[in-house]
């Protein structure tokens, strides 16, 4: 890892000022992705702006039908939160199945979605639940936030402050996990909402996306049998040592059926 200047601001305003001044600054949340990346010298920022000292970025607040989770809230805290478990149990369960306990103690919601790993879990929830990503500059619809492999709608120096998750009627997330890392080989998040079912798929393609065809198939009857004839497009699927494109396409259907069945 190359040397850098380390900063620990106490407010969002201070963090924003620091990153503007830095030649090649980077925010660091729990460091659970950024530090391994820097060890490999795939990133070598001039300045690291640690968000760990900013109290306003942390915490969970329920206001009516909206569950707001601060960007710096650790996966373990979302998993253990009585508010989240009551309002959106599928989201608490998703957070509780990310990686391992030590990763969940340091890894954050903001870091996970900013990083937008193609196999990350949170992006599927942000999209399917119709969440809104709030930054220090604007609000971004969850659906528009994830733009490509490790790419997001964030501007260079933009800071995620919190994510607003609307409470669904019911929701479920099912992932076929990589047994070593627990990242999703394929994960499907299904949410029943008043206008109809919303579905997002992660792990399968370049990044998590809303699955309009799965939603259409579920318009009539929102049950697993409605997807019996569903075929995911093999040509769009990722292929790597963990799973071929054909296998991933198969998993999209199976995980979607399991998620729909669990979505009661």
């Amino acid at each position, binding site marked *: 890892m190359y040397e850098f200047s*380390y900063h*620990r601001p106490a407010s969002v305003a201070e963090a924003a000022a620091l990153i503007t001044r830095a030649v090649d600054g980077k925010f660091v949340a729990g*460091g659970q992705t950024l530090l391994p990346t820097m060890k490999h010298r795939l990133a070598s920022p001039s300045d690291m702006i640690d968000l760990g000292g900013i109290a306003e970025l942390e915490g969970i607040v329920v206001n009516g039908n909206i569950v707001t989770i601060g960007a710096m809230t650790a996966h373990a805290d979302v998993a253990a939160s009585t508010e989240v478990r009551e309002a959106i149990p599928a989201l608490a369960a998703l957070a509780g199945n990310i990686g*391992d306990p*030590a990763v969940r103690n*340091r890894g954050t919601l903001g870091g996970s979605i900013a990083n937008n790993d193609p196999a990350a879990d949170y992006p599927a929830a942000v999209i399917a639940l119709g969440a809104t990503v709030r930054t220090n500059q604007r609000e971004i619809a969850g659906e528009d936030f994830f733009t490509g492999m490790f790419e997001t709608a964030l501007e260079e120096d933009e800071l995620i402050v919190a994510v607003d998750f609307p409470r669904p009627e019911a929701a479920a997330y099912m992932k076929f996990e990589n047994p*070593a890392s627990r990242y999703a080989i394929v994960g499907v998040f299904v949410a029943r909402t008043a206008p109809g079912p919303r579905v997002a798929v992660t792990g399968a393609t370049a990044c998590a996306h809303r699955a309009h065809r799965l939603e259409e198939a579920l318009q009539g009857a929102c049950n697993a049998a409605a997807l019996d004839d569903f075929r995911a497009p093999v040509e769009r699927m990722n292929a790597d040592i963990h799973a071929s494109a054909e296998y991933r396409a198969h998993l999209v259907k199976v995980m979607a059926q399991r998620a729909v069945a669990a979505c009661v």
Partner: protein
Amino acid sequence: MLTINLAVNGQPVSGEVEARTLLVDFLREQLRLTGTHVGCDTSQCGACVVMIDGKSVKACTMLAAMADGAEVTTIEGLANGAELHPMQQAFMDHHGLQCGFCTPGMVMSGLDMVNRHGNDLDDATVRRELNGNICRCTGYQNIVKAIRTGAKAMEE
């Protein structure tokens, strides 16, 4: 260089570190607390797990600077003189180790389980919670037994 002040195993400690110094390197190289191991250095194996403010963390995936002001507990902080901590004693009694390289991390993760799930741990919970700890020797059977027994013994 940065100056950091923290508590390690109950003792106030201060040190001069580079910004890029990993917590595990600070503990091992500067404080000479070599009980915390580096198995992979890529955040997978859990040999480097320590407690920060009561929560398990991979010390190879945290900067020393991030631990400024924190309370850190390493494997060296568990025994009471010659008397092993109940979780350590359980690893000894159940032969929960062979080469011992993974053991410090296993013990710390075991303590973290007790903090969150209490003293009555079943096999499924322990195995699930050990997702982030890799052992290349034992096959885990005796590690699971040791953690369950150690958890129970901590109640007494």
